[in-house]
């Protein structure tokens, strides 16, 4: 895993641990905020509707009170008819003020009051009609006692002022009020597009709720209007008048505040996440750099220990050879030559091990390799060393060709390393077996020896750097770690099985290349 990937992983962990609580808080907070915002909007609209209803009730009560006062003051006068007509100038909302008696022609009788009500009015009872649309504005016919039996004062209340009041109610930019009569007909509409229904008497989407509200059925606080728009509504009713008032506001506008807070919170959460990621990434990188530096120092120390140990050993041998040579005894010359040759070979392998460490596998440059041929090539490469040690090498081929892709040099270095270890671990006269096989999508290259095996406690650290126990002077402990590095760079892995006294088996698993049937164009064996 690269340092960058480790840094990203660490960053993600830091971010997740820091931001998830923030996100959870934001989600629940927003939900609560949204619910409270809707509730608050609805309460505000209800309050406006209640205020409007109260104003309407007061206005109607004032008009009727004024009519009562006029009735009492004027009806008994001899010029009552003229005075009533004259009063229209001062009370324009009291239209068609007239005296009503049993002799009043039918055309003069308030048209929305039936016979029973007229009779009641003449008996001295105050009567009023339902509201209706007269000409262009809502109206109500009212008759009040005149103080004289058989006479009443009647007027048609012009409720245009109420219509104006309702139409002038504005909530936010798009909120408006509606007023309905007892049957759900719209009598005033703040929404311009709904005003036609005031004059035409056509029901609107809210009409059923309005008429139900007057009968005591609560009206919905969230509804859709005739245009399908989502609305929040506050309702109030005037049971005496039979009117209901709805104050509506499009939900998107009413909840704009909550939405703005939501956006701020979402932005804050995102910003926190970004900051966490940036800070986490920066800290992770810094930490990894420090760790790497420390590791490098440790590695350098281990290398220094290994190199000092091995080169010190070689130095002692070379000092002994030097002392032997200083004797100028020709009899020692063959031994001196042999010893120097051995030391040169040891130092060459030493250099070679380090050299392998510097070569990186590059997947883009991988070539096809057939493992049966590869095994034969490895055997040929180790044949000389095995012969010196009097160890045989057997190759057990797979039944068919097995192709992998890889860096042939590095893979052979890895295989030769394993084979050399196996030879060194084997008793003279025994054999090392190279076996090629297949397991599902992997090709297997196995190196088996019949040596003394590896102690179980040693297995766990077998692939750690500079951990070789074969301190013979020719091993710096980089062989197996390098093998593992090479195999990992090929997308494979190395496993080991060892039973003390029964030898060891090292297996390289390498991914098979895609097409096993076609022959590669590149050569399969080392030159």
């Amino acid at each position, binding site marked *: 895993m690269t340092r960058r990937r480790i840094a990203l992983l660490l960053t993600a962990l830091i971010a997740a641990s820091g931001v998830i609580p923030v996100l959870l808080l934001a989600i629940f907070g927003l939900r609560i905020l949204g619910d409270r915002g809707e509730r608050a909007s609805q309460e505000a609209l209800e309050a406006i509707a209640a205020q409007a209803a109260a104003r309407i009730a007061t206005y109607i009560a004032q008009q009727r009170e004024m009519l009562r006062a006029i009735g009492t003051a004027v009806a008994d006068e001899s010029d009552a008819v003229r005075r009533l007509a004259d009063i*229209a100038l001062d009370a324009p909302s009291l239209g068609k003020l007239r005296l009503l008696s049993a002799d009043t022609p039918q055309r003069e009788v308030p048209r929305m009051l039936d016979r029973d009500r007229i009779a009641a009015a003449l008996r001295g009872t105050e009567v009023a009609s339902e509201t209706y649309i007269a000409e262009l504005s809502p109206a109500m016919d009212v008759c009040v006692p005149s103080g004289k039996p058989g006479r009443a004062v009647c007027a048609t209340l012009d409720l245009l002022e109420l219509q104006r009041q309702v139409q002038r109610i504005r909530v936010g930019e798009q909120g408006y009020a509606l007023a309905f009569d007892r049957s759900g007909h719209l009598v005033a509409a703040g929404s311009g597009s709904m005003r036609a229904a005031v004059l035409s008497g056509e029901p609107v989407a809210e009409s059923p709720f309005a008429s139900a509200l007057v009968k005591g059925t609560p009206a919905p606080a969230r509804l859709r209007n005739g245009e399908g728009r989502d609305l929040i509504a506050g309702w109030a009713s005037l049971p005496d008048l039979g009117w209901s008032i709805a104050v509506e506001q499009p939900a998107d506008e009413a909840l704009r505040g909550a939405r703005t807070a939501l956006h701020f919170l979402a932005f804050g959460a995102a910003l926190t996440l970004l900051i966490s990621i940036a800070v986490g990434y920066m800290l992770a990188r810094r930490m990894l750099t420090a760790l790497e530096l420390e590791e490098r120092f440790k590695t350098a120390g281990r290398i220094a220990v290994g190199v000092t140990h091995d080169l010190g050993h070689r130095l002692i041998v070379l000092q002994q050879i030097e002392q032997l040579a200083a004797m100028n005894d020709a009899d020692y010359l063959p031994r001196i030559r042999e010893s120097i040759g051995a030391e040169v070979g040891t130092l060459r392998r030493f250099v070679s091990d380090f050299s392998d460490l510097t070569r990186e596998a590059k997947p883009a440059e991988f070539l096809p390799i057939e493992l049966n041929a590869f095994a034969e090539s490895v055997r040929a490469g180790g044949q000389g060393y095995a012969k010196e040690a009097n160890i045989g090498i057997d190759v057990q081929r797979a039944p068919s060709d097995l192709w992998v892709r890889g860096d042939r040099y590095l893979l052979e270095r890895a295989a030769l390393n394993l084979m050399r270890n196996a030879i060194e671990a084997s008793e003279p006269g025994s054999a090392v077996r190279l076996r090629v096989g297949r397991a599902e999508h992997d090709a297997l290259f196995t190196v088996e020896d019949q040596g003394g095996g590896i102690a179980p406690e040693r297995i766990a650290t077998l692939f750690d750097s500079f951990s070789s126990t074969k301190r013979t002077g020719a091993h710096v402990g980089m062989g197996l770690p390098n093998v593992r590095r090479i195999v990992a760079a090929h997308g494979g892995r190395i496993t080991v099985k060892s039973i003390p006294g029964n030898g060891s088996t090292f297996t390289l698993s390498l991914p098979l290349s895609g097409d096993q049937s076609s022959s590669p164009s590149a050569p399969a064996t080392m030159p």
Partner: protein
Amino acid sequence: MYRLLLFSIILGCTSPPSREAFVVKLAMWGPLGELAPTGNETALASIAQPWVYERLVTIDAAGELRPSLAASVDRLSNKELRVEVRRDATFSDGTPVTDVDVIQSLEPAGLRAIKSDGALLIESRQEGLPADALLLNALIFRRVQDKFLGTGPFAVASQTPTELRLARRIPAAGRINDVRIIAYDTPRDAFAHTLKGDTNLIVDVESRWLEFFRGVPSLQIIRGTGRSTDSILFNPELPRSERLQLERILGSQRVRDLAYDGGECAEGSGGDEPGPPAGRPLRVVSWGPFERLALASRRVLADRAGEVSQLVPEEAVSRVRNRDFDLVTARPLRWPPSALALVWRTGAPYNLIGYSNPAVDRAVDAGDWRAAHAALRQDPPGAFVCTREQIAVVDVRIVNPRLGPYEALETLPEWEIVR
């Protein structure tokens, strides 16, 4: 590549999606009547007269005559005008306008025209009525069988008892090319259909009802100066001194406040007077929309206040013709200045109360409108209380709607629509 080229060619050859043509639908209430250039001014359809029939002259906002179907107009005297007719003018059937057409068209308007050196000499046939006042009412037409052809930008496309359709003779981009006048039974229906969007133009809207249209996104409110003034006219038999006192008290701000809540009047005459002159009670005849004005006048008359009779128009006219009144509510023309001749000159067609003032007659005959107004003030026929502005509600897609100085919708052919 080939397919792309083919697709491009097909796309290029496909006609663009058609857009619905903009139609002005004018909501009115009452019987639609027939559209004719003469004798049918009370029909609703007459509102289309200035779009279908042209006048030789029109009038600008300053009250000056401007050639319309005429190429030039010269005032030879107050009674005689010299007019050259535009030679490129044609009727809606494509035939050119001749001097004979013009002469025949002017005759019903009380004008006589004779040819003279390639022009027409036009004079009033009615004693005392100036030619230019009559000329403003004269529409040029040609009668073909039972139809009247006009030279205006529009022609009648079809008509039913409740709808008159007019189409622009030569469609113009960015202008109104189709107009429909739809007659409803009541103002309530007309308002409801306008609010609903079935119609998009309504005129003669009282300010009291403007509340309905405020905040309606598809409509705009336009205003224009009114031509008529709500007035209280006097019985000419009342003494001049009394009429002068009445003019001051009835034309006062107090009457305007009582009758109109004070805020709707562009102008009025008179001033404050401590009280009415002593005398018998004055009977007020009223009709139609003037009930409050009549009551207000009775209120300020205090001790002289008499009976207020709110009558149907026919009864009111009958009472006035019989001089059976002291005061009568009315809405006489106040503009253009020459209208004064039609209303206040002795024997003028709109002089319903029979007002006669030699000084006014002399000034009218001389074409001196300023002097005529001064003479009216010296011997007032009534108190001019309130000139109310004209109000219309129109589709917001019309960018420059304005009401004409002479007739409310005379400028409609010039209105532009949003492209």
